[in-house]
């Protein structure tokens, strides 16, 4: 049949070494593959540009501050910050500041998780609970959490308590909302399928709703952690009493300007570290998601 013309050469293609016919194509050994991949991963043009950009930032900072160009007259130079960092970071004071802020964060954040996640799950699970709580919750939400600072100072006799309460409040909203979102995003066919397999409500809750909402819960926790740091810094600056935020503000008052910048970066690093911990926990709790 002339309809299908089998090309004589191409019919026994498996013997032809196609790869060797093409310039620029060589089959690598596994080691070569690994080596090339890792080298390309580190020394490529875009990584060089990234490093360059950081260098530029530092150089600019240096130039602007040493030449005292108008708005930056009082800003410390990178070198001053570096010197201050070397002298300050090993001290007990710095350690205590970090411990205090971290302690407040973890206490407030844990309480927010313990109350917020069950509340979110209940709101997603039971329509009556949602109808009861949600309108009030929504109408309180536009109030920035920071503006709760004076009120919480009024409400709690100890500053310590009010700071923990503020951290709790900052983390609470995103955690509840994301948990609710997570429950509502569990696909209907999962539940339908499980129902027709004869699941009881507790199976649906523990096998479907909870793991289905987990990714969203962890998103909420990451966002909540970010807000918790905002809150702890603001509360410490306003209400005082140890901590990184207080330290930064105090440095301003004591005219120890390099320490302000140091404080900012320390806060940033601590915040980054806290988010990393949550991400890590998330990957641990959801092995099916970190596979790809």
């Amino acid at each position, binding site marked *: 049949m002339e309809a299908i013309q089998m090309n004589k050469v191409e019919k026994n293609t498996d013997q032809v070494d196609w790869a060797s016919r093409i310039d620029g194509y060589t089959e690598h050994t596994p080691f070569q593959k690994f080596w090339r991949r890792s080298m390309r991963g580190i020394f490529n043009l875009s990584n060089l540009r990234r490093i360059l950009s950081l260098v530029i930032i530092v150089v600019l900072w240096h130039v602007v501050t040493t030449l005292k160009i108008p708005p930056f007259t009082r800003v410390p130079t990178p070198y001053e910050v570096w010197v201050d960092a070397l002298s300050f970071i090993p001290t007990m004071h710095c350690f205590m500041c970090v411990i205090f802020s971290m302690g407040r964060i973890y206490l407030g954040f844990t309480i927010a998780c313990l109350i917020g996640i069950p509340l979110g799950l209940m709101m997603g699970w039971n329509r009556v609970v949602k109808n009861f709580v949600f309108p009030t919750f929504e109408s309180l939400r536009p109030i920035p959490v920071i503006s709760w600072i004076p009120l919480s100072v009024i409400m709690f006799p100890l500053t310590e308590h009010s700071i923990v309460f503020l951290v709790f409040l900052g983390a609470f909203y995103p955690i509840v909302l994301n948990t609710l979102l997570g429950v509502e995003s569990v696909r209907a*066919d999962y539940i339908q*399928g499980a129902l*027709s397999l*004869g699941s009881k409500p507790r*199976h649906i809750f523990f*096998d479907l709703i909870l*793991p289905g909402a*987990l990714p969203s819960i962890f998103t909420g926790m990451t966002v909540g952690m970010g807000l918790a740091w905002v809150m702890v810094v603001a509360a410490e600056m306003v209400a005082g009493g140890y901590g990184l935020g207080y330290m930064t503000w105090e440095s301003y008052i004591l005219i120890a300007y390099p320490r302000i910048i140091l404080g900012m970066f320390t806060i940033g690093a601590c915040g980054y570290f806290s988010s990393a911990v949550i991400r890590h926990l998330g990957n641990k709790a959801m092995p*099916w998601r970190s596979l790809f």
Partner: protein
Amino acid sequence: MNSSAKNNVTGVEPGEMEMRGCYYSFGEGKEVLDNVSFKVEKGSFTCLCGPSGCGKTTIINLLAGYTTPDMGECLIDGVPVQGPGADRLVVFQETALLPWMTLWENTIYGPRVQGKDLTGEVADRAEELINMVGLTGFEEKYPSQLSGGMQRRAELVRALINQPKVLLMDEPFRGLDAMTRQIMQEYIIQLFEQTGTTILFVTAELEEAIFVGDVAYFLTARPAMVKKELVINLPRPRKFEHFSSREFVELQREAIETVDEEAQKAFSAFLKAKESKAKQSA
């Protein structure tokens, strides 16, 4: 029909299913089903064919008991459907394997929630079924680690382990490419011929319906009515060769003639709806 006696793989007698004069709508002017009646014989492989959005999924939902018809009734073995149950299982359009469970956990999920003993017979049957669809060695993988075709097969296993009387399949191969689909069809034929379960198979693909089924019902565009019943008398066991047999082509011709008109109608339905809306407002 292929009604083998009590089968050692499923372990139950296959059931029969009927839909009698069902009406269903999502609201005024959104009628989905318009007097749909058909019957799925014991141990048969029945296909439902219709243009997309015509209400095939609604039929599956009604038979599975997720919703109730506005009028008419759905019967399983002569008893009206009341809520979902493990005697009839649905294989969904998109895979409904739980992404947080491994293939093995997914497979034995049904027996587990029913409180059955998970060792012994259940485990044996699970292994046998997994082997039958060629997934041995993948038991500890999560669904996201499997290819599309493998996920669909895993879903079949998950349904079959519960010894359903009836299997409802809602476009289970939608979204797979032509080659994978072909291979999946061969798997499902093989499974059907070995287990003898009653299957209701919903599809939009004519060739697929003719290739796998014993009977095919063709539905009209929305609101859906049964337009034609086509008995497919290709021999069983069905093989790839039948795909290109004379009888197959004859059936295909008949099906195409039935459906072509409907497809055109469905396509222009949007414009017509728009026209009528314009007329109403004028």
